């Protein structure tokens, strides 16, 4: 197969199958990303509030929310009066 610079992924695609785990992982991430971003559209939320709203375990919310902060989709808001929980919002 001829290899075109900038499109070498096609070369590897012919040689190697993408694992089901990688495909499922991508689907799962997209689903959760959409759910979190949709939930935050209505206003700032804490991890606990997000967890209740999405019916998702809190540790998972922390992991995905912090990943979305890292990727630039979500920003950290204010901490509550007890200095315990931060809110998170859509990054403008």
């Amino acid at each position, binding site marked *: 197969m001829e*290899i075109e*610079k*900038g*499109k*070498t*992924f*096609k*070369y*590897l*695609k012919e040689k*190697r199958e*993408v*694992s089901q785990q*990688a*495909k499922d*992982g*991508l689907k799962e*991430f*997209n689903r959760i*990303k959409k759910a979190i971003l949709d939930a935050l559209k209505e206003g700032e939320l*804490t*991890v*606990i509030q997000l*967890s209740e709203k999405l019916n998702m375990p*809190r*540790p998972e*919310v*922390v*992991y*995905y*929310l*912090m*990943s979305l*902060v*890292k*990727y*630039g989709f979500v920003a*950290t808001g204010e*901490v509550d009066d007890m*200095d*315990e*929980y*931060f809110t998170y919002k859509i990054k403008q």
Partner: protein
Amino acid sequence: MNGATNHLNFDAVVVGGGVAGGEAALNLASNGYKVLLVEKELSIGGKMIMLSKVFPTLDCAACITTPKVSEISRHPNITIYTGSEISNINKIAENNFEVTVVKQPRYVVVEDCTACQLCEQACPVSVPDQYQYNMVGRKAAFIPFSIASPKAAAIDIESCVLCGACEKVCPTHCIDFTQEVQTLQIDTKTVILATGFKLFDPLMIPRYGFGMYKNVITSMQMERELAPTRPFNTVLRPGDGKVPDKIAYVLCTGSRDATVGNPICSQICCMYSIKQAQLLMGALPMADVTIYYINIRSFGKGFEEFYQQAKGMGVNFVKGKIGKISEQDNGNLTLRYEDINEGILKEADHDMVILSVGVLPNKDASAFFSQDELQLDPYNFIYQTDELVSPARTSIPGVFVAGTASGPMDIPDSILSAGSASSEAISYLINGQ
């Protein structure tokens, strides 16, 4: 990258690009010897580059490591292979070793990558970031971490869905999915083993609840939480994002514990826990920090003063052995422990627990040698055949050991050990001429 050549000559091969291997390579290179530094990770810098600060001076770890790492990377006498592992070392004669190195494809031409991160932004995949100890995600096209060396992207091919988004946005066309595994034959005159250590996996002690209770984390995870390149915006509980205010340290997790197969002291846990306690009190001024210990071993220069300083800052030291950790509904943790001074069982509540995990041997090095036997000590660290007179010597003449590959030690001792290994290697090279 010497990709086309598959038979190369060096004066020395240094295995492991951590603080000890890097120092040894630099010493040899500065004396005019050609060195190949082989590192299995995507960046050199070892475990030290992941740390927040160092004890007992509280110097920023990155500020010490980064210039060193860049000096190693830029040195004309040092060739670095990252993402590479030794598959075999064969001693033919004195000053004559044949080393086989297997280099995994990075799928990025390092020399052409400008670390612009456009591929990272374009990549749709998110998987746990091993360099943040899985507390946050990273992309499949990613720069390992911000102070990585080489600072270049890499493709995690196991997680990649081959969508081509990274290639499309890469301005320098440095992404190359045609790269393949390379096996390289190296001729060298001497070998330095700086294969470092492994951290104890607390899953081995189920009664501590690590893995099950998300607010029980390892000291390395806390180290990341305290580093400037931290996974969260501040120190938070991974269980629910709460800012913790009652934090416990469990010392000797996987050290001095024959039941998990590691009866020896790891030498660094007391001091790094005291360091983290001080940093936590700086980051979270309202927090209570308690350290549960068997003995505090503050044996080094400035260590006892550092310990006393922590006490003075209000860190609570409890001589107690943890029996069991259990989780409450709100994610807080109950520690059941034996108060060693009073000889009674007690319970205490904390909202986050840090397990001060110990140092375990990295046994990889013994498998490198097919002809000769690399002897290990009773604890599976590399055996120093003449520890008092010639501490870098191993059971194979011409093969030297540097850093924690020979046993638990702190950073200054690792650097001293690397100095000794490089000096001995140089003597060996000169005698062989």
